[in-house]
């Protein structure tokens, strides 16, 4: 394969220019990657917003008003970004994958319409009230608005994952001919919408959102506490985020392990790709894997890797207790997903997951000793960790989505058959380029907004801009708690 990384990047570039399929997949993958960050930001922040709003209205304490005001701004910015990136996605099924939309329309259209009507409207309408209605509605309605906004975010994920789970483990339909095309006809709604994958995906994704946002809140709080140790508000936000992480991070590991077994049951090919398991037979578990050469980055076979492995434990995990269990290998299939992407994404996600557990335990210990905000080392670690939740979430998503290739509907419709037949490579490439430019702009803007918000917050806490080190002293303007 020569020097594979560079070459394959060039090849991929040409393939994108020439092939509507590759360009469409890259476009969808790229837009969903950006969208998912903002969507999960809403999901994960929702409990914080509800809590801060409730405490603010209930206790009238300055610190909750401060935290509520800050995080509602972040939530609003994230929601706008989520909306503007989500609307193009809802059109891409039609523009880029119309065959998929037509084949699956009867199965996926309903849940997607519910997402818009039941969840998206709820979030958008009551966010308007939450952002601009403080003086126009009563306290109770105001708190209720925050609950409804959060409920909207969580319901949104529910309906979207119903669709995605159906694509992973499709049921409740039969193929019929309509207008000269083989399409899926709904036969059993309960089976179709409550697929075996649904509860796994929902819990894993919602918890991943909570972890990501707990890390973000902890990181921002740690930064502000590091600059301004006297702030009650941000000390309590940091404590809250660490406690939340202490619950959610270990849960994700336990849940993820069981989820993996479910994947082996329902999508053995994806499971084999996660472990780069080619030959059918007993499977080892690679705890750590490093490539011996650059080849192994693009094709991670066991002999290409330095690994720390537990022999036969792969079989044990896949089967739920049998060390000798046979695990189907990738060689059994005609077409496989890009194994390297799935294998390394999976390792990246799991590795980060364990890092989060470590950070949570460390933080929990410091909370227990009452020394959380004194440990500069911990504060710095949390600042550094603040974007890592999203890295884990994205790579987890890649395992799920790239891992099921070549299928868009598992066992039923291939991605290559789902792509528009009228789309030209030039059109698809042009729009791919457009989305890359626009969405890079969006991500940068979101980061700038967060930076400005933090800076403004520090200024209101009396920290001068030029001041690099920790700033002690009484906090200006605000009497009482803060």
């Amino acid at each position, binding site marked *: 394969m020569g020097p594979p990384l560079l070459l394959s990047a060039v090849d991929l570039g040409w393939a994108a220019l020439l092939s509507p399929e590759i360009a469409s997949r890259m476009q969808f993958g790229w837009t969903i990657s950006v969208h998912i960050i903002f969507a999960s930001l809403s999901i994960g922040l929702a409990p914080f917003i509800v809590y801060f709003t409730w405490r603010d209205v209930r206790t009238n304490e300055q610190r909750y008003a401060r935290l509520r005001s800050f995080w509602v701004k972040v939530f609003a910015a994230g929601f706008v970004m989520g*909306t503007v990136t989500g609307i193009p996605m809802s059109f891409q*099924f039609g523009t880029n994958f119309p065959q998929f939309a037509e084949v699956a329309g009867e199965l996926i259209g*309903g849940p997607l319409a519910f997402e818009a009507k039941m969840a998206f*409207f709820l979030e958008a309408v009551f966010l308007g009230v939450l952002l*601009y209605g403080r003086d126009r509605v009563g306290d109770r309605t105001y708190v209720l608005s925050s609950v409804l906004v959060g409920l909207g975010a969580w319901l949104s994920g529910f309906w979207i994952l119903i669709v995605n789970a159906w694509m992973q483990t499709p049921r409740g339909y039969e193929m019929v001919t309509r207008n000269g*095309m083989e399409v899926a006809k709904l036969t*059993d709604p309960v089976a179709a919408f409550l697929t075996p994958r649904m509860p796994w995906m929902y819990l894993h994704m919602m918890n991943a959102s909570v972890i990501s946002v707990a890390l973000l809140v902890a990181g921002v709080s740690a930064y502000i506490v590091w600059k301004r140790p006297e702030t009650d508000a941000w000390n309590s936000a940091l404590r809250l985020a660490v406690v939340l992480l202490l619950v959610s991070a270990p849960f994700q590991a336990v849940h993820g392990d069981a989820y993996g077994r479910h994947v082996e049951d329902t999508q053995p090919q994806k499971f084999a790709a996660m472990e780069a398991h080619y030959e059918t037979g007993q499977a080892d578990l690679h705890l750590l894997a490093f490539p011996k050469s650059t080849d192994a980055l693009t094709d991670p076979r066991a002999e290409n890797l330095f690994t720390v492995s537990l022999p036969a434990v792969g079989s044990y995990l896949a089967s739920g207790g049998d060390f000798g269990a046979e695990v189907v290998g990738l060689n059994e299939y005609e077409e496989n997903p890009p194994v390297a992407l799935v294998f390394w994404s999976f390792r990246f996600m799991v590795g980060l997951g364990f890092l989060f557990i470590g950070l949570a335990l460390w933080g929990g210990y410091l909370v227990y000793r009452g020394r959380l905000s004194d440990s500069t080392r911990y504060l710095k670690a949390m600042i550094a960790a603040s974007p890592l939740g999203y890295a884990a979430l994205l790579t987890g998503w890649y395992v799920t989505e790239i891992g099921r290739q070549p299928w868009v509907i598992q066992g039923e419709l291939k991605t290559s058959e789902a792509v528009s037949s009228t789309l030209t490579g030039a*059109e698809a490439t042009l729009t791919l380029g457009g989305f890359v430019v626009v969405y890079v702009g969006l991500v940068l803007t979101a980061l700038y907004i967060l930076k400005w918000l933090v800076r403004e917050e520090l200024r209101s806490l009396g920290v001068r801009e030029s001041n690099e080190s920790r700033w002690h002293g009484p906090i200006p303007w605000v009497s009482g708690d803060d």
Partner: protein
Amino acid sequence: MTDQLLPVDAYLVESLPEIWFGAVLFALGMYVVLDGFDFGIGMLYAIRTDEREREAFLAAFGPIWDANEVWIVAFGTMLLAAFPRVYSRLLADNYLLALGFVVALVFRGLGPELREQRDDERWKRYTDYAFIGGSVFAPLLLGMLAGRWLFGGATLPVALTGVGLVAVSILTGAAFLAAKTEPGLAAELRTYGIGATLAYLGGVVVLLGTVVLTDAGGAADAVLSLPVAAVVALSVAVGLGGSVLARRGRYRAWLVSALALPTLLTILVAILLYPTIYPPTGLLVREAVVSPLALNLVTVLGFPVLLLVLWYFKFLYGVFSGPIESEGYGE
């Protein structure tokens, strides 16, 4: 089991496919009416340079635009749920138009939200460009998309549909703002509104005339029907009547009449389409619709939710009714 509760091989009511045709166009109509005046606000924003006026414009639509915008997603997903063939062909056939429209929406949505994040002249200028550009191109491209839906590839009718949607958006935007701002500004806004009304009505007449003369998309016969004539006559009456109300300073009544125009436009689209649903493919409503069980299910679960959504909107508009306060809304 749901399949015992719901008929599997027959629609709940015989006309359910037609009801869904109406429901999908209702969602489109809600979008064109509600986000239409948001677009109008964006375009009027471009020609007012006073910073205080601009802030007032942004405050007028700040709490509601997000909710208004969701109607386009409701429309798209309802179309997918009931008529997947139409959804997929319409978007695949009009690839660049459709993606151009959503990119315009991205800019329209971001501009005003980002503007307030930072107090810096250049930053404000760029976010204003995004807001204004998005507000012009979104209705233009959406109108062109509707034109392609109705008339296929015929250039002039498609362009005129786009321009028509821009004009009617300016009209509703002006009426909405006039009802919410102080009298001096409202009087200036009504001038734009009345101009847009005349441009819009003229545009519709020219558009339909062109379609009759060229038989674009084979729609000439449909245009020369009694219902179309009735809707056009009603539009002219409502448009002119609204202009008179505007002149007399009765801005709330003007707003109601102004919102009737995009509603009538959506009804016109429905009349021109029916009984086909995507004329370029010759597909009929009945042929394109999904199977009974699926449609029954989304009906039984979906219509109560739709009513709930309408109630949310009543609540939202109730909370933010009345003139814009000097400091805008809320925080």
